């Protein structure tokens, strides 16, 4: 095939989009609508994952030290801890700091501990974070045989529950995104298919004039691709603008919730969606044209 022929295909596709403007508009806007929804779901899913990771990363092991260790012993234990595989961060908390924290946790009822001040029953401890939050049980087990550590606490039940919850949330998120992605593919190719249906007679005519199947296909493929691409362009514009304002608003009104920063997503989603739009448009068109091109 000559380059010039390809130019012809491209021009045909553009002209066809313009001449069938009503139909082009309907399909482009459907593609855009579907991708906006997919984008919303994708961003939601990614953010849920992001927040879940953030919560998980706060999980920690408390290693209580034996009573009456001197500073050197304490720092030796610290040295050993750092060398244990899987540990990311180790922080010493003295018994006095521990009491203060505990009081703070109790809030209004903290006064109850007032009496204990003199004779602080709390031990010194190390607060330990693991590189991989889900490895916490294994890491905790490793610490058992370090001398000077009398007790290892990491709220097994709570941590297990948390991971179960984040695991489920991730699963549901992933399932939702997958379902939405498939449904989007389905709707987009269906939409493009309907535009091909409306012109199935032309395809027959071209065949009787001696056009090869690919000669007929190319302009339709390019047209589908362009429709998909334009739809995707609209959708990423909407998604980017909305997400920009969302992150801004949330940062102001709900600083507790940490969303994925705008900048780090913009590029990937834009490129990804353009590619998806173009591909689905071309595929939807290509698949539906097959039926009419054959025979």
């Amino acid at each position: 095939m000559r380059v010039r022929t390809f130019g012809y295909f491209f021009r045909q596709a553009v002209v066809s989009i313009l001449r069938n403007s009503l139909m082009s508009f309907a399909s482009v806007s459907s593609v855009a609508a579907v991708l906006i929804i997919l984008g919303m779901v994708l961003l939601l899913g990614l953010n849920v994952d992001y927040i879940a990771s953030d919560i998980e990363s706060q999980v920690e092991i408390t290693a209580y030290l034996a009573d009456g260790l001197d500073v050197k012993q304490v720092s030796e234990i610290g040295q050993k801890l750092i060398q244990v595989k899987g540990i990311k961060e180790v922080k010493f908390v003295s018994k006095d700091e521990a009491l203060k924290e505990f009081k703070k946790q109790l809030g209004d009822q903290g006064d109850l501990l007032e009496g204990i001040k003199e004779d602080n029953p709390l031990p010194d401890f190390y607060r330990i974070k693991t590189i991989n939050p889900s490895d916490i049980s294994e890491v905790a087990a490793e610490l058992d045989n370090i001398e000077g550590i009398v007790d290892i606490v990491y709220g097994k039940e709570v941590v297990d529950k948390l991971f179960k919850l984040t695991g489920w949330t991730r699963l549901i998120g992933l399932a939702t995104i997958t379902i939405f992605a498939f449904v989007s593919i389905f709707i987009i190719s269906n939409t493009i298919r309907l535009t091909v249906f409306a012109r199935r007679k032309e395809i027959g005519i071209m065949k009787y004039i001696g056009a090869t199947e690919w000669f007929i296909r190319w302009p339709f493929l390019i047209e589908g691709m362009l429709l998909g691409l334009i739809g995707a362009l609209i959708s990423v514009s909407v998604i980017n603008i909305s997400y920009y304002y969302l992150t801004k608003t949330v940062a102001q009104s709900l600083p507790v919730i940490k969303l994925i920063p705008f900048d780090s997503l913009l590029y990937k989603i834009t490129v990804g969606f353009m590619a998806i739009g173009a591909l689905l448009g071309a595929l939807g068109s290509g698949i539906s044209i097959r039926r009419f091109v054959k025979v």
Partner: protein
Amino acid sequence: MIRMFGVSKIYRNGIKALSDINFHIKKGEFVFIVGPSGAGKSTLIKLIFREELPSSGQVIVAGRNVARLRRKDLPFFRRKIGVVFQDFRLLPDKTVFENVSFAMEVVEASKSEIRRRVPEVLELVGLRGKEKSMPSELSGGEQQRVSLARAIVNNPEIVVADEPTGNLDPETSWDIIKLLQQINLRGTTVVVATHESSIVNMLRKRVIAIEKGRIVRDQQKGVYNYES
């Protein structure tokens, strides 16, 4: 060039459009197919460029058995045959110029070739000045002539025309028939299905008459009707 051996065609709804058709049209011949409405003329023509396949029998066109053509050879086979369709079959989204040039784009003719040839052919069929019109903006006869222009633009070996003058006044009809004759004189095989008895009677070419799907007459230098 075009041979049929014991061809019959039964459509999917059970209608027997052709039965036991046998003939041989040689290279360079000019043949009229005549017969009443619904006799099977269009079906016969559709068998030639393989719009339809025969239910039985052999159709051999330009040395190829149409039933045995592989899918990838089909377009190249069809390019040897220029067809004027009874229902025109113009591409509704393309202008007159584009409809004709499309046939040349298909064979990847050069841009300069297309720019030279398309206006020339449109001139021949009397459609100069209509290049930019869409098919929906043409009169019936004008559409028919676009279909003809498209059929002849690539100088095919065979031209088959299904009632190419059905929507034309006698004078324009004569111009078109003369055009087909010229093309024929240059060696192209021409097959015309028609109802225009005056034209058939005047030209005295070979006439194949069909009635109810059967050849009832195959006559050199024939006329439209035996009795007339």
